[in-house]
């Protein structure tokens, strides 16, 4: 029973136990959930230990046959790429539990049970090395989020929950088809074998086949990222979700899509990825600028932050599909940063909602006078999210733009415009909510209180992480770039086999593109 299985099993156990706990007194349930999730977080810190010594490689691998007839194995492992994503989800679950201490008052038991099930699903997604197992965890994480939005959401929660579910389902069904097709051709679901077969050319997919498989996987992940045309579920899901739901959705669930792109799309279908590179990058850049522009005009705070996520994750896709070491490192690091900073943003918006029960920006004004502490924490989080140096997003954004500059400088110019726009809409939000005279309507419920101890306790670890990840990246980046190095190798070597399937001119151009100047 190595540490990873323990970290994976505990949330599931927590889910089951919470369901059994007595329904009436909520505090016992809340306390149990909090303690359990903190325990999981502390244990997951142990996962990082081997990485600090060696810097890369797969650890805590368990490879046990699970189902015989279609040969499915419980193959679970951890490498540089998924380590920090697991830690992100184990960190944010206790934070979300802490945040929704008073926020959730009806059906408390089910809420915390679903939160723990969500954590189980998320950790599973990031550590699964067997494609089928990955798909199972992908669906497992979908269900609790559907209920979180559907049951504890605001007015249009049913519409939002159904839309969220159908969107993701449509994508993941395509992926399932691709997985099964691969199984038929290769005879195994195991990711490591598959990539190995593909790399050594023993399993040769015709370029047409590979393109279709790539697109199937890509659409499933693009919906989750969300990439530009497929993003309309995100604002609705966020506006209607409760605070804890928004935090988990924005901070970790969006990363499932990006993680999938890096883990599955690049190494397994390198030729197709290279062929689709240009239009995917264009979609990403449109996403960056479009997300920022639309965020600028949103009257609703959560929608604004949701569209900002679309913009930030456009950077991630740009980084992934630049196929450079810098771009990929930046993309993965940006995934973590975005998790922290947007998670914190949603938490703070949740605090504001708890005080005034309104998400419309026009109902706010001059909040910094009655609540200076909330204003300062929001200021730091906002600055982190617009990419101020010495805070976390800057390193990610810089590396992504640097990576894309190595490939095509026009992309960098277009994407960098997003950095300006992000400053505009965030500052404008801060301006209208926190600065100026205090809006009378703020305190007609009851006096507008500043952040209390519990809320600060939830916000503090994220703020500390923002500074730590921004200033001293040595604790986080080396493992990530080691894992990315291997993925770049896999996605590069794959391109050689592309050489003979396509015409002469194209070959020179591709070889030159791949090996860079």
């Amino acid at each position, binding site marked *: 029973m190595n540490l990873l299985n323990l970290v994976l099993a505990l949330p599931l156990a927590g889910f089951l136990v919470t369901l059994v706990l007595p329904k009436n007194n909520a505090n016992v349930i809340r306390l149990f959930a909090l303690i359990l999730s903190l325990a999981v977080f502390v244990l997951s810190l142990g996962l990082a230990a081997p990485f600090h010594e060696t810097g890369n490689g797969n650890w805590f691998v368990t490879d046990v046959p699970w189902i015989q007839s279609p040969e499915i194995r419980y193959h679970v492992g951890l490498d540089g790429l998924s380590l920090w994503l697991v830690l992100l989800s184990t960190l944010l679950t206790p934070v979300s539990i802490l945040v929704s201490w008073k926020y959730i008052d009806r059906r408390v038991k089910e809420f915390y049970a679903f939160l723990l099930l969500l954590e189980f699903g998320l950790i599973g997604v990031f550590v699964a090395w067997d494609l089928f197992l990955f798909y199972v965890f992908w669906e497992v994480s979908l269900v609790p989020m559907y209920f979180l939005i559907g049951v504890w959401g605001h007015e249009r929660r049913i519409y939002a929950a159904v839309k969220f579910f159908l969107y993701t389902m449509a994508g993941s069904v395509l992926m399932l088809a691709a997985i099964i097709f691969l199984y038929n051709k290769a005879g195994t679901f195991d990711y490591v074998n598959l990539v190995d077969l593909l790399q050594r050319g023993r399993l040769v997919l015709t370029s047409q086949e590979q393109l279709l498989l790539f697109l199937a996987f890509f659409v499933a992940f693009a919906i989750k990222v969300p990439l530009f045309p497929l993003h309309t579920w995100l604002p609705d899901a966020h506006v209607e979700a409760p605070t804890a739901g928004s935090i988990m959705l924005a901070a970790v669930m969006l990363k499932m899509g990006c993680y999938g792109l890096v883990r599955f799309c690049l190494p397994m279908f390198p030729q197709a990825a290279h062929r689709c590179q240009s239009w995917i990058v264009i979609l990403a850049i449109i996403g960056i600028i479009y997300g920022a522009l639309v965020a600028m005009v949103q009257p609703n705070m959560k929608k604004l932050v949701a569209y900002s996520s679309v913009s930030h994750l456009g950077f991630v896709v740009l980084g992934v599909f630049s196929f450079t070491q810098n771009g990929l490192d930046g993309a993965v690091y940006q995934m973590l940063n975005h998790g922290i900073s947007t998670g914190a943003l949603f938490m703070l918006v949740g605090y504001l909602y708890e005080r005034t029960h309104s998400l419309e920006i026009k109902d706010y004004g001059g909040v910094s006078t009655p609540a200076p502490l909330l204003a300062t924490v929001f200021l730091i989080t906002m600055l982190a999210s617009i990419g101020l140096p010495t805070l976390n997003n800057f390193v990610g954004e810089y590396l992504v733009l640097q990576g894309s500059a190595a490939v095509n400088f026009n992309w960098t110019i277009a994407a960098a415009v997003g950095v300006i726009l992000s*400053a505009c809409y965030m500052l404008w939000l801060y301006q209208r909510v926190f*600065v*100026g005279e205090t809006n009378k309507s703020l305190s007609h419920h009851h006096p507008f209180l500043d952040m209390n101890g519990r809320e600060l306790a939830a916000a503090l670890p994220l703020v500390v992480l923002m500074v730590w990840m921004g200033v001293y990246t040595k604790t986080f980046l080396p493992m990530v*770039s080691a894992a990315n190095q291997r993925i770049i190798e896999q996605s590069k070597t794959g391109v050689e086999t592309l050489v003979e399937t396509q015409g002469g001119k194209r070959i020179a151009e591709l070889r030159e593109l791949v090996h860079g100047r």
Partner: protein
Amino acid sequence: MQHLWLIPLLPLAGFLINGLIGKRLPNFPVSVIAVASVALSFGWVLKTLSALGPLETAHVEHYYTWFQSGTLNVGVDLAVDRLTAVMLLVVTGVGLLIHIYAIGYMAHEGGYYRFFSYMNLFMFFMLTLVLGANFLLMFVGWEGVGLCSYLLIGFYTLKKSAGDAAKKAFIVNRIGDFGFSLAMFLVVVNFGSLDFQKVFDAVRPMPVEQSAGLLTAIALLFFVGATGKSAQVPLYVWLPDAMEGPTPVSALIHAATMVTAGVYMTARASVIFERSPMAMDVVAVVGVVTAAMAATIGITQFDIKKVFAYSTVSQLGYMFIACGAGAFSAGIYHLVTHAFFKALLFLGAGSVIHALGGEQDLRHMGGLMKKIPITFGVLACAWLAISGVPGFSGFYSKDEILMAAHHSSPWIYWVGVVTAGMTAFYVSRAMFLCFFGSYRGHHHPHESPFVMWGPLGVLAVLSVIGGWCFNVPHYLAPMFPLAEGAHDETLVYISVAFGLGGIALAFLMYVVSPGIPDVIANALGPIYRLVYHKYLVDELYGAVIVSPLVNGSRALLWRFMDAGLIDGIVNGTATMSRTVGGVLRLFQSGSIRSYAAWVTVGCVVLLMVLGVMAGGVQ
């Protein structure tokens, strides 16, 4: 190992202490912490510079790698060479004086601890900018000072105009930083690293580019960053609005240190600029256009801080003229002297405003010479310095620039000289309106306390002796070789003549017969109004860029594209499936005969298909 990290870290410590526990401390300990941290930092600078001696080559200290990805390795490394030494002295020296002055000025303002913590944070970022040994660390300081200017301009949180000015400053700076970051990407793509040493060693052997090549692109993009930060023509609109912040902020950030970051960066990257004549011309032209335009606007303004703000923009234009003409050391020389007399001008104006209880409009001042003599005496030094009166610091540095300008392209010299005349005119106008004639205000002015006029006195002395005492070009000679050219005396006499002429004209118009300015203003009519309203540049930007962007994205992008198109498709599929379901439901009517009928129809259709196929088979 000189522990250079202490210099920026001390103000950061001041920021953290004041920021976290300042709220509970009374004003005095807060100011002590703030000033002490800057003073210690200043002391450490002096110790380091004396320890390092002649500093022929840069002294670099590596601490840890900030981030490493593939071949790109960016380290947190600080470096000191002669250029940095000059900047360090200016930043910490003038900064210290302004901190001391601020104790008096901010005594009765709310949020005392917040002000000083932001000021210390600014010092930290400015020192990081100056000490950074690679472009990225400089960029950290670059954006950091932008943040602090946002925080300090918007210090009076209750004033909505202050908030908007702060937002405007940050966004315009961000546009500049956009250019700066693009330049960095090009540098890394082509030279593989960001460290000054490596990049400049790689650039030196490269030939001077005749046409627009890589180096020109990098230089121009860096210059976009500089225009954003140092408020040059396209991106200068934020500086006049930045006067919303408290006056010590205007003095420290918008006169002495932050706005000069652009000039420092251009001087630092002189190796790149010198190899792209096109970029140099662009720098010079932008400099001269900014200088001239800002000077004309300065003449018409009535708010004393706005006058000095436009004067700062204009003087920065001069520094860029020097850089454009290749005389980087002259630019830095003017930067140093400008830091002295412009900080003095702003602090003096602050002391006047303090005396008049917040009154900033020149029309409500007058005759203050007798009421606040010390402030007048101190301001007089700055006035003479900026007007280029021989013997004062301004004269030396401005003439260096004009000489270099004449050497490279004479027409810039002539525009520069005329602008020098205008500069002398509008500063004298401000002085005469403020200190001469009869008092037009309704406050009872009182002299500022020692803690305020003390630093003013020091700055006054520096403004006077700063010129010949700190011979900056000579000190920077190893880095920027001095231009030999004949030191043409006549040019100096011309510029001095223009300066004195400007003062005389102002004296004539505002002291001898105060009526004349209104007469001229009405005579010029529309031209005057255009210049008074700052060439309507703000409104132009608003109309051309801001509103189409905002309304466009609201109407087009959000309403039509997002809600309409994409959601339309999604909801459309949902409603379509419901309607199809509805139609199919009608079939289950329950009557056997309809079932029978449909069965028969089915058979008939099947038969027909068979028939067709059979026919086909035949």
